[in-house]
């Protein structure tokens, strides 16, 4: 049946001199020699294909592994007591109580989304959702942290709409509400947009499934979409090197998604789990069948025998190597006992899902793959899946780091003549809120279904997305993702900690108890020692901070080589935090509702002069100095206050302070439901020794603004006093005014911003670049 020469193991043993294209497949010379050493002969073409994809940066974490160990090492018993599955599986699993468990993970699909925005982003959702299914969970929501180049750059107009419609087109078709994320514009992401995707799923404890092939004689089945030529080498080629104009187009390396196939696959897998028909399961993502067979085999009894011609193909001309490397989407591999084969086939029949039995589990310790009866792969699966190369890449603090940190905003040219009068301060608030990074993102999020499932209790623009898990009790989860790449650029150690602190704070602000962390570490090339230093520092910072806050990293993803023509992105360790709600009806929204007229507004935390790396500094074109001080003890106390206040029904609105400081928080709280407020910064300036500008625009951490009924003020301030945490009454909700009024000790005494005008300006920033067709365009389309 083969029309090409099959390179069998036998052939490989007798033709040691045959030249193989290991370099084209992305392997380094020493890596190739190591494969020869492991096998005791040259690899066959199929074996070479497997090793090359599995040993790629994307699959093997060869540059990052030595650092990532810290996430597993820096833990306490307290941190792991609720952890049912830790790092290393498809996704970590946390015990939620009442017999429920939750699994969540963030991944990147950065490189494919730059090459082909729609399919790159779509298959990013598809891939992370399959990771969640393969743990035995029903996926219940997705989120998307996105970073694009300059909002006015022509290429952003190519990338952003494609990414957004890809996320919507795929995610909406799966019936998964999109409950939040981030949208950041910065020219450092111009040729390296970051398209990260988070998925969360829930399951009963007994439904937990792991990726291992146990039970000698059990059958191995591949099901879902057919295998095609799309995405061959996608993970290894795309995500493991920088873009370079001189190379041919990478477009064919991007996978193409079929959300309908994925939706059917989700329901079909959940029925398999419910009927207990699979022993082990693994999704096919990067490295396709190579990854699934070698990981399943090495996590189980250590052996598997597969006949590769049984794989159902979209393209019959594919070679064995291509079949092993293909990253065609919407495929799963499972291990099924012989007695369950018939029942398994019945479920496939019901859902109309194609499947083929590839082989069986053995106890030989070898992964044997045959092609029409001839052995083309004979390897120890551990050497493919787990014993890839590990690099201790050299790293060093960049020489320019000191100079960068010495360039403080205050002493720079940009930091002179700062807004000081009522008029200037008011204008600065409007300028801040209409800057691309602070603008309304609903043009984007309105393209995502946030209602499907009927369990969304909070979504964008609130601080965290909140999903009900148990309809009887209201048990649920909150999720937030955050990262300020500017902070991480100024200080990667602190920047990673600040990303965690912000996500933690957002989850607590919604009222949930933070429980677990997933991270997506987006960096430049690990072959550059200065980038490697950023990476090492970020991992060290994040793992230290997780230990201090008592939240374990349960999984995540590393995306390296995010650089083009030698220009790397800011280090961007995106951190997702998952928190638990006893009852999601207690969740706190991020703004005042109309019925909250007259409620007291409190600022929690201490404000210092911290403008380096701030949004205001960005408006003035400055990036230098050191990021705001990390104070994890304060974050923890603030979190406790916000969680207790939510649980005891003391507060009706809460919003964390981050980019844009107090000014942004106050504006966002009023914009949330169009309800105004009157605020004074005078006492704050006196207490913390600040000028009004700093009070409004500093980005000091561990702060939040809350609104509460006057009847709760005493109880609330008693709580903050008992914990020794600063709480200052700064104003009242004013539902009648239709504006945000700020008074203070500055020339003019007060400024007011009309909410209608502010909303108009704030919400038109993104549509004016990407949106609304003109009337003429609509007319043309209707003809």
């Amino acid at each position, binding site marked *: 049946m083969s029309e090409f020469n099959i390179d069998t193991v036998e052939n490989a043993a007798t033709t040691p001199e045959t030249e193989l294209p290991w370099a084209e497949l992305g392997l380094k010379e020493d890596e190739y020699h190591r494969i020869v050493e492991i096998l005791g002969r040259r690899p066959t073409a199929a074996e070479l294909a497997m090793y090359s994809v599995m040993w790629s940066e994307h699959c093997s974490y060869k540059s990052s592994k030595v650092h990532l160990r810290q996430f597993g090492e820096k833990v306490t018993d307290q941190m792991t007591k609720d952890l049912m599955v830790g790092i290393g599986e498809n996704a970590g699993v946390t015990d939620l109580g009442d*017999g429920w468990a939750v699994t969540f993970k963030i991944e990147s699909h950065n490189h494919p989304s730059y090459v082909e925005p729609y399919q790159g982003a779509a298959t990013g959702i598809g891939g992370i959702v399959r990771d969640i299914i393969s743990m035995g969970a029903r996926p219940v929501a997705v989120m998307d942290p996105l970073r694009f180049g300059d909002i006015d750059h022509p290429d952003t107009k190519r990338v952003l709409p494609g990414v957004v*419609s890809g996320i*919507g*087109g795929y995610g*909406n*078709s*799966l*019936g998964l509400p999109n409950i939040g994320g981030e949208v950041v514009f910065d020219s450092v992401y111009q040729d390296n947009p970051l398209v990260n995707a988070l998925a969360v799923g829930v399951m*009963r404890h007994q439904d937990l499934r792991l990726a291992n092939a146990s039970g000698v004689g059990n059958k191995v089945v591949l099901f879902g979409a057919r295998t095609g030529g799309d995405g061959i080498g996608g993970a290894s080629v795309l995500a493991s090197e920088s873009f370079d104009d001189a190379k041919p187009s990478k477009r064919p390396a991007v996978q193409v998604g*079929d*959300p*309908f*196939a994925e*939706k*059917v696959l989700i*329901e079909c897998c*959940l*029925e398999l789990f*419910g009927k207990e028909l699979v022993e082990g399961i693994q999704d096919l993502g990067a490295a396709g069948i190579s990854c699934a067979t070698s990981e399943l085999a090495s996590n189980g009894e250590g052996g598997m025998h597969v006949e590769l011609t049984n794989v159902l193909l979209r393209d019959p001309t594919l070679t064995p190597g291509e079949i092993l490397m293909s990253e065609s989407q919407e495929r799963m591999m499972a291990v099924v006992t012989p007695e369950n084969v018939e029942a398994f086939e019945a479920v496939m029949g*019901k*859902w*109309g899902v194609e499947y083929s039995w590839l082989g069986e589990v053995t106890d030989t310790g070898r992964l044997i793959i045959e092609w029409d009866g001839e052995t083309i792969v004979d390897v120890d699966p551990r050497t493919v899946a787990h014993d890839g190369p590990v690099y201790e890449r050299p790293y060093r603090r960049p020489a320019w780091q000191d100079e960068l940190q010495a360039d403080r905003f205050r002493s720079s040219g940009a930091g002179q003549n700062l807004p000081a009068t009522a008029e200037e301060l008011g204008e600065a608030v409007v300028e801040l809120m209409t800057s691309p990074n602070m603008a309304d993102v609903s043009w984007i*999020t*309105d*393209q*995502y*279904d*946030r*209602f*499907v*499932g*009927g*369990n*969304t*209790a909070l979504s964008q623009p609130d601080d965290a997305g909140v999903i*009900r*898990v*148990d*309809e*009887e009790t209201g048990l649920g989860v909150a999720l937030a993702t955050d990262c300020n790449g500017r902070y991480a650029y100024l200080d990667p150690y602190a920047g990673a900690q600040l990303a965690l602190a912000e996500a933690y704070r957002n989850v607590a602000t919604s009222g949930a108890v933070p429980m677990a962390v997933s991270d997506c570490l987006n960096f430049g090339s690990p072959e550059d020692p200065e980038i490697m230093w950023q990476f090492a520092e970020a991992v060290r910072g994040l793992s230290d901070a997780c230990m201090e806050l008592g939240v374990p990293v349960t999984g995540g993803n590393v995306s390296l080589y995010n650089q083009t023509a030698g220009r790397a992105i800011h280090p961007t360790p995106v951190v997702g935090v998952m928190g638990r709600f006893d009852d*999601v*009806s207690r969740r706190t*929204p991020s703004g005042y*509702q*109309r*019925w909250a007229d007259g409620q007291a507004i409190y600022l929690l935390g201490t404000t210092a002069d911290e403008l380096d790396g701030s949004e205001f500094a960005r408006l003035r074109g400055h990036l230098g100095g050191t990021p705001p001080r990390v104070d994890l003890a304060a974050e923890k106390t603030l979190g406790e206050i916000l969680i207790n206040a939510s649980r005891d029904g003391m507060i009706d609105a809460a919003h964390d302070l981050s980019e844009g400081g107090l000014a942004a928080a106050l504006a966002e709280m009023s914009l949330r*439901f169009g309800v105004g407020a009157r605020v004074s910064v005078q006492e704050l300036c006196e207490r913390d020794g600040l000028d009004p500008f700093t009070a409004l625009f500093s980005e000091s951490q561990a702060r939040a603004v809350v609104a509460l009924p006057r009847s709760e003020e005493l109880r609330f301030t008693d709580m903050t006093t008992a914990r020794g945490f600063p709480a200052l009454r700064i104003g009242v909700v004013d539902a009648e005014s239709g504006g945000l009024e700020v008074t203070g000790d500055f020339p003019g005494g007060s400024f007011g911003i009309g909410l209608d005008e502010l909303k108009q300006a704030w919400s038109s920033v993104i549509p004016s670049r990407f949106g*609304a*067709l003109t009337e003429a365009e*609509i007319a043309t*389309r*209707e003809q």
Partner: protein
Amino acid sequence: MTAADTPLIGDFPSPAEARLDGARIGVVTFPGTLDDRDAARAVRLAGGTAVPLWHADQSLHGVDAVILPGGFSYGDYLRAGAIARFAPVMTTIVSEASAQQAESPLPVLGICNGFQILTEAHLLPGSMIKNDHLKFICKDQVLRVENTATPWTAQFTQDELIAVPMKNQDGQYVVSAAELEQIEAEGRVVFRYVGENPNGSRNHIAGVTNPRGNVVGLMPHPEHAVEAGYGPDDATGMRSGTDGLTIFTSVVGSLAGGK
């Protein structure tokens, strides 16, 4: 019902196991259906019994009414609803819903993709094309209820304004000029968009009914506005809107013989 014993979509209990009290309302699952659980929840909250129906099963298992929920049936790669209309379950639904001799033909509600399927099946006039702005849109939408003579709208007051979420890509309702004139003249526009037209639909039409009034289709999603805390925003607060529930209590009430 706790989520633990919620049947998997498609893995439904046999009708004998279902509760027999109250109206029994079938909720059809096609491959690619997304809002079936939500529709079933809405039926339960309205006091009815939701009976899962499967696309490949011709039997309606004796249900009193049928809901075709939203989603992307069979992926909707060809044209929304174009394949689903040929599903075995649709043969029975079309026949029972359009039975001319029947005193009370089967009440059928199509939501979003369900509406698209009903137009493809010619139970309702018109068709749906891509939104005029060419994007998927998810937002809270105000509708005016203009026909309260159907079993699905009996408990609304004439011209009542309701808020329900809408979310679709192919939601622009189009219909020939002659048919448009006819459905307007016969008062068969059941729901109309209030305020800015969200997708370019003819005459701001959000939902229509057949001449007998038993078949209703609408693009927005009343099943997402049935439970305080998870619906659209309304005057009483965030996500508090439950206007959609009246659609489900209407049919349950109609089937019980009252209003």
